[in-house]
C-alpha cells in the first residue's frame, strides 16, 4: 500500500476545501448515525427477549431444531423458513441470473440486446407486491386448469422471489462483464480456447467481484422482502417448512404480523428479537458470501489484486 496523496494545504481556495471536507464528513456521519441508532435501538428493545426461549419457547433446543417437537412460542420455525426460502430462491435465481448476464453482455447483439436489456430493467422496476400477486394469480390459474390441488407453497414463494431478485443478478453480471477491457475479452480466443472455456475460465473469474456484489444484494433482498411471500405461501404457525409444496413461516412476516397483532408487551419484545435475528442473518449471509469470494480469489490466485 502506498500513502495517499494529501491535499495541498497552501493552495488557494483553502476555505472552500475545508468546507467541502466538513460536508463530506457530515454526509458520512449522516449515513452511518441512523444505522448505529437503529441497531442500538433494536438491541435495547430486543434485549430482554434474547436467549434460547426466543427461538424455541419452552421446548428443549435439540428436538426443536430437529423438528421432533413443534415450537409454538419461538421464532425457530420462522428462521428455518427464511433460510429455506433464501436457499431455494438463490438456487433458482443465481444460476439463471448469471447465465442471463453472460448472454446479455457477451452474446446478445443489436436489437435483441436492447430488448433484453429493456426486459431486465422493467423486471427490476416491478414492485414486490406485484410479484406476489403474480405468484398468487399463477396458482389460481393452475387450480382452475390442470392442477386443481395446487396451492401456495414454499416453491411458489421462492419462484416469485427469484423473479424479484433476478434482475439484480443479471444486471450485476452483465455490468461486470461489460467493464472488462477488450484485451481481456480477446485473450481467451487468442489462445485457441473454446468459447465455453473463455467464459468459464477467463471472463467470469475476472468479473467475479462485481457478480458477487450483485448476488449479495439480491440475497439480502430475498431475506427481507415480505410482500412477495405474503401472497404466496407464508402463514403464521406453519411450523418448520415441511417441503417444497408446504406452507412455511418467515422472519419478516413474523415481525410484520406480530407488530400489527400483538396482545402483550412480551410479544412485541419477541418481534424486536426476531428483527435483530433477521438483521444478524442478513449480515451472516453477507459474511458467508464474502468468505466464498475470498476462497475463490485464493483459487484464482488473485489475492494481490485490489
Amino acid at each position, binding site marked *: 500500500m502506498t500513502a495517499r496523496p494529501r491535499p495541498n494545504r497552501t493552495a488557494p481556495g483553502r476555505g472552500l476545501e475545508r468546507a467541502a471536507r466538513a460536508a463530506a464528513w457530515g454526509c458520512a456521519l449522516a449515513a452511518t448515525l441512523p444505522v448505529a441508532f437503529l441497531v442500538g435501538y433494536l438491541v435495547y428493545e430486543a434485549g430482554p427477549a434474547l436467549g434460547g426461549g426466543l427461538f424455541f419457547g419452552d421446548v428443549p433446543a435439540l428436538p426443536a431444531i430437529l423438528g421432533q417437537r413443534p415450537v409454538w412460542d419461538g421464532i425457530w420455525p420462522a428462521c428455518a423458513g427464511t433460510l429455506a426460502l433464501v436457499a431455494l430462491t438463490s438456487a433458482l435465481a443465481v444460476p439463471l441470473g448469471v447465465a442471463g448476464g453472460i448472454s446479455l453482455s457477451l452474446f446478445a447483439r443489436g436489437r435483441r440486446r436492447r430488448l433484453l436489456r429493456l426486459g431486465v430493467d422493467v423486471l427490476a422496476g416491478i414492485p414486490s407486491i406485484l410479484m406476489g400477486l403474480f405468484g398468487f394469480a399463477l396458482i389460481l390459474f393452475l387450480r382452475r386448469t390442470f392442477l386443481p390441488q395446487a396451492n401456495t407453497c414454499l416453491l411458489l414463494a421462492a419462484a416469485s422471489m427469484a423473479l424479484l431478485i433476478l434482475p439484480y443478478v443479471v444486471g450485476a453480471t452483465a455490468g461486470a462483464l461489460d467493464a472488462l477491457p477488450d*484485451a481481456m475479452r*480477446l*485473450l481467451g480466443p*487468442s*489462445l*485457441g480456447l473454446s468459447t465455453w472455456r473463455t467464459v468459464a*475460465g477467463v471472463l467470469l473469474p475476472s468479473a467475479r467481484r462485481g457478480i458477487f456484489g450483485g448476488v449479495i444484494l439480491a440475497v439480502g433482498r430475498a431475506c427481507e422482502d415480505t410482500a412477495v411471500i405474503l401472497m404466496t405461501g407464508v402463514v403464521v404457525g406453519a411450523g418448520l417448512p415441511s417441503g417444497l409444496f408446504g406452507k412455511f413461516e418467515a422472519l419478516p412476516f413474523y415481525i410484520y404480523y406480530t407488530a400489527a397483532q400483538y396482545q402483550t408487551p412480551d410479544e412485541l419484545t419477541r418481534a424486536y428479537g426476531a428483527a435483530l435475528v433477521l438483521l444478524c442473518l442478513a449480515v451472516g449471509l453477507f459474511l458467508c458470501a464474502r468468505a466464498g469470494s475470498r476462497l475463490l480469489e485464493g483459487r*484464482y*490466485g488473485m489475492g494481490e*489484486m485490489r
Partner: protein
Amino acid sequence: MNAGISPGQEGGLPPDAVMAVRGLGVSFAGRAALSGVDLDVAGNALTMIVGRSGSGKTTLLRALNRLNECFDGCRTTGRVLFSLDGHPLDIHDRAFPVTELRRRVGMVFQTPNLLPLSIAANLTMPLRHVLGMDKAEAREAAREALVAARLWDEVKDRLEAPAKTLSGGQAQRLCLARAMALEPDVLLLDEPAASLDFMAARAIEELLSGLRERYALVVVSHGLGSAARMADHLVVMRRGQVSARFAAGDLARGEALAQCMEEVF
C-alpha cells in the same frame, strides 16, 4: 467467404512463406480499416509492420488469427492462406477450425495480458484445454516454455504465486512463454515492448531475435530504431494499405531507412 483452395491451384503459398495475405480488406461497422493488403509471412524470419497509429497495423495482425471477428460489425474480405495438414487453405474456410488456427498463430498483446490465475496455471490451463495435455505433461511443457522465454530462473520458486505479482517485463515474457507453449508456427506480437521500460524492452527484443529460428514472427512496432535492428522484412502501413516494403539488406543502407522515415512520419 470463398471456398477453400485446393493444392496446386493458383493462389497457393509462395515458397518460403508460411502465410500469405491476398487482397485483404477489413471494415468495422462500415468503416474500412484495411483495404487491398497483400503480405507474405516468411518462415523463420521476423516481419515487422510499422506505421502511424491508426494505420491498420493491429488490425492486420489480428486478421492473421481472425481475432477481428471478436468485435461487433467486423467484415473481412480477401484471403489469408495458411497450411492445414500440409495443404494451403484460406483461414476463413469452414474446414479450418478457428481454435486450431489461433493455437498455431499465437499472439502477444501490447500490454501483458494475464489470465487471472497463478504463474504456472497461466501456461498449464491453455495447454490442458487446447492441447488436451494431462497435468504432468502440461507442467513439463510449461517449464520448457519458461526456459525458452528466459523466465524460468526468475519464477521457478514461486510458480504458484499470482501472475499479477510479476513485473511488466516478466509478465510480457510469461505471455510469450504461454504463446510458445502451444507450439505455434507463427507468433504475432503487437508492440510487445511498448509498455515496458528500456531494459525490459531490450530484453524482449533480444529474445525475439533469437526466436526467429523456430517461428515465423510478425511484430507490430512504432519504433523505427528497433525495426532497423531486428527486422528481416519491413512493411510500412499507411491509411489501411501497405505503402512500402523493405528487405533486411535495404535497411542496412541509410537511404532506405530515410525513405522509410519519410513514409512513416
